[in-house]
């Protein structure tokens, strides 16, 4: 009898380990690998040119003040996303998240087609430290700058 219990326990263990390893592998290779950079900035997107034409991609930046055109009847949203260097026009269907407004950080999932980013999913990137870079800065510098100011904030 005890052998039977042992056998069942071991079988359950094997199943459990397979499930855990499977989940682990899926997370690592299915999820993280592609998304180490979670989104591109408008400048990065435009620099990639035809490489990103009509390909699923994420675009992140700030909502350009005064650019939001919301048609409540058609649930049609148009706005301009900026990173301080370049801008991209975004088109989206459906109501945006409630915190969507001018100067807010936004990440859109969708495809870049004929100069317009067709977004299927809008996400708010909430962070007071999310700032547009000054003209001439590359996005990398912007992020470095963001971290620098953060560290200064922390030490002051």
């Amino acid at each position: 009898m005890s052998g039977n219990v042992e056998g069942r326990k071991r079988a359950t263990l094997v199943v459990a380990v397979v499930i855990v390893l499977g989940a682990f592998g899926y997370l690592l290779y299915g999820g993280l690998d592609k998304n180490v950079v979670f989104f591109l900035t408008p400048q990065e997107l435009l620099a990639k040119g035809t490489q990103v034409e009509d390909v699923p991609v994420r675009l992140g930046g700030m909502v350009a003040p005064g650019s939001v055109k919301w048609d409540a009847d058609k649930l049609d949203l148009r706005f301009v996303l900026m990173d301080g260097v370049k801008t991209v026009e975004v088109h989206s269907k459906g109501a945006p998240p409630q915190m969507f407004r001018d100067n807010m950080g936004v990440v859109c999932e969708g495809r870049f087609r004929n100069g317009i980013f067709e977004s299927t999913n809008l996400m708010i990137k909430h962070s007071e430290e999310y700032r547009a870079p000054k003209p001439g800065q590359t996005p990398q510098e912007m992020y470095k700058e963001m971290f620098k100011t953060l560290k200064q904030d922390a030490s002051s």
Partner: protein
Amino acid sequence: MGVGTVELSVAPARARRSTGMLIGLGVFLLLAATQAYSISISTPDRDMGHLQKIMYVHVPAAWNMMIAYFIVAIASLRYLWKGREKDDLLAAAAAETGALMTGLTLALGMIWGKPTWGIWWTWDARLTSTAVLFFIYVGYLILRAFVDDPDRRAQWSAAVGLLGALNVPIVYMSVRWWRTLHQVQSSPSTLDPNYTLSLRINAIAVMIVVLFFIRHRYQTMQLEAAADAMHERIALGDRGGINA
């Protein structure tokens, strides 16, 4: 290993349980008090309104899961160094509480993410690495449940426990190392002073809860190990014919 290990008797254990229950009551009253106080002094955030208050449960859960895994790492290392059963049990107790707090952190993050970000979940580096951390320790607990030999269980657990703990700094730094949807850590200068105070007292209250959990579970595991050791002695005694 089994013979001659921890000798524990029941009466003092019962007494310790009564004190444990009293401490538990106090710990939870403290948490209720810090939550009530922080909710009462926190004015609505300019972006989030009252949603900001979810910070007082989400962030303490995340910080304290890290404290729990730190204990796992230290105890696992000590076990590998000295081979004492006690260290294995302490690591296991801390891992259980750590997994609980990681699960809570993820769930609270989803509840916070939906109304602020607009989504329950996404695969950015912070969320993904936290999910990986959770699954490693769920695996750790499953491993312990299904390996019966105490020595083998302790060695494997120590290895998995350390592997999991290595992931903790990755989770913490993920928002700075990679570009994520999750914001970087706040600091007192990026928070309203009321928010800072509220966050700190809630983090301390949750820390006390977590340490209480680990201590209580650790004591229980010692009782279980003592009972197992006694059963092993009985089994050996039967085979050796002492009872005849």
